[in-house]
């Protein structure tokens, strides 16, 4: 039985998370001593998945897949799993992946673990670890059903070039019911990398004193190629849009670099960001709890230090 991975493409293109999940699936397949088959839909270059470890790529074909409908995608993947013979299904822990994993587990009547962030082990049954309690702890799950579904948290493992574009690509026509939901409009924030996909996030809090002071944050983010974020009080007082709110009740993120500027580091905020690889905290209060969770700290007035950090990055990029 194969490991089957569904790699998402958007407007025909895979992003890094798609390559991460394929590498994760291939390593899982190697562990289980089986092969790794990647599924995709609407991708311009499905063979790219071969580079990151897929040993076969199957493109799902059906008019019903033209818009995202959770139940239709669930049915499509379930049919592909049945026809291709899969016992382990791996999805991305994205808005769409999170909408599929539960339904797929119900359809296959098997165990599922979402937001895994480490490779599974198979020494004493199939076991896999995920963060729980909003990142404050980890749980190791043991799955006893014959099949299992996982979703992989972004930035958990780097994509690796484990194969080549010279991979067998097949298409699979599926007979699916028409979706019962209709997408009538899609609004995307233009020109910015969405927070859950950002490698670098520059985040600011109440220390900014007001919504008119954000220029220095945006300039720093521009220099770093970063996406901007904010703490809950900032979003709640309308200084910044709600989609920028990171934390336990906002978006949970795991970028490689998180810069927290003028954020004290309440436990609910830390819960949403503590899976970041590196955390830099800038705060004038040396007692701010965030420093305990930080790798690097600068105790200083942010209005003074942030513009100087931006200048330092400009010098670094020029050198």
């Amino acid at each position, binding site marked *: 039985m194969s490991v089957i991975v569904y790699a998402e493409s958007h407007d025909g293109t895979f992003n890094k998370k798609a390559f991460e999940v394929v590498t994760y699936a291939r390593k899982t397949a190697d562990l289980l001593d089986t092969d790794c088959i990647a599924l995709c839909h609407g991708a311009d270059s499905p063979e790219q998945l071969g580079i990151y470890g897929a040993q076969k790529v199957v493109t799902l074909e059906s008019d019903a897949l033209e818009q995202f*409908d*959770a*139940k239709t995608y669930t049915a499509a993947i379930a049919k592909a799993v049945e026809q291709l013979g899969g016992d382990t299904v791996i999805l991305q822990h994205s*808005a*769409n992946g*999170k*909408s599929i*994993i*539960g*339904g797929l587990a*119900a359809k296959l009547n*098997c*165990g599922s*673990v*979402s*937001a895994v962030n480490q490779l599974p082990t198979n020494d004493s049954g199939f*076991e896999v670890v995920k963060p*729980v*309690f*909003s*990142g404050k*702890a*980890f*749980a*190791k*799950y*043991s799955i006893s059903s014959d099949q*299992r579904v996982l979703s992989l948290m972004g930035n958990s493992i780097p994509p690796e070039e484990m194969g080549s574009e010279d991979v067998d690509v097949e298409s699979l026509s599926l007979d699916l019911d028409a*979706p*019962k*939901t*209709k*997408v*009538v409009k*899609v*609004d*995307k924030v233009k020109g*910015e*990398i*969405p927070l*859950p996909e950002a*490698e670098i996030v520059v985040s600011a809090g109440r220390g900014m004193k007001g919504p008119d002071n954000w220029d220095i944050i945006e300039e720093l983010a521009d220099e770093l190629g970063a996406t901007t974020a904010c703490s809950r009080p900032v979003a709640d007082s309308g200084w910044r849009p709600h*989609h920028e709110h990171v934390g*336990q*009740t906002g978006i949970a993120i795991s970028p*490689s*670099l998180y810069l927290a500027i003028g954020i004290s580091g309440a*436990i609910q905020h830390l819960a949403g960001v503590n899976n970041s*690889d590196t955390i830099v905290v800038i705060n004038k209060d040396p007692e701010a709890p965030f*420093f305990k969770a930080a*790798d*690097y700290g*600068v*105790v200083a007035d942010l209005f003074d*230090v942030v513009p100087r*950090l931006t200048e*330092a*990055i400009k*010098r*670094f990029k020029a050198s």
Partner: protein
Amino acid sequence: MNILVCVSKTPETTAKITFTSDNSEFNTNGVNFIMNPYDEWYALVRAIELKEQFGGEVTIVNVGPSENDSVIRKGLAIGADKAVRINAEPKSALETAHHIANFAKEGSFDAVFLGKETIDYNGSEVSAMVAELLDLPFVSFASKLEMEEESKAIITRDIEGGTEVIEVAPPFCISSAKGLAEQKIPNMRGIMMAKRKPLDVVEPDEVSAPLEVKEFSLPPEKGEVTLIDPEDMDELVRLLHEEAKVI
């Protein structure tokens, strides 16, 4: 419009997370429990608003032991009409979903509302499972839901870096995200009335567990923070480049 709202009990957001000595169970000593915020602030409140708009009933369902009754009563105090507790202690999302679906099949609900995730296991799984088991159309991460008439809902769904607007006809199932409604604090009248509202306890059907938690662990302690001289931002940039290798 009859709406079923599925609610969980979770530790409060500031709870200190520790485990029993063999790390097999969450240590509930001294922990305060609340209704999962996504279930309470968004799913339940929006359901009550829709009931006020169209008439009908809001029913709360919870899967858990009798200790959960206080959380369920709070839901009744906020404005749900009745509640059912399924007397089971599931180990997995799939068992929870089966219990909810088995109950929901017996009723006639125009919509099933859940929170987008619980703040303890962060699974985001039960809502899609319930939708699948009940064969209902499913819209996840609903941050806005408008109904001008009872036959159609217009739902805003949060996606990476934006939103989608989706049309769906009842019966349907949603998972609720921030923005769907405003938190509602129960008033004294609500609290008094909640005592007289029905809270039925039903015994569960047999459902098997496909998985279990073997062990919990806490994240490794972070090392000491490296403090950087505020006058020397070049040093911070150097460390981020050479040591952390993130820029």
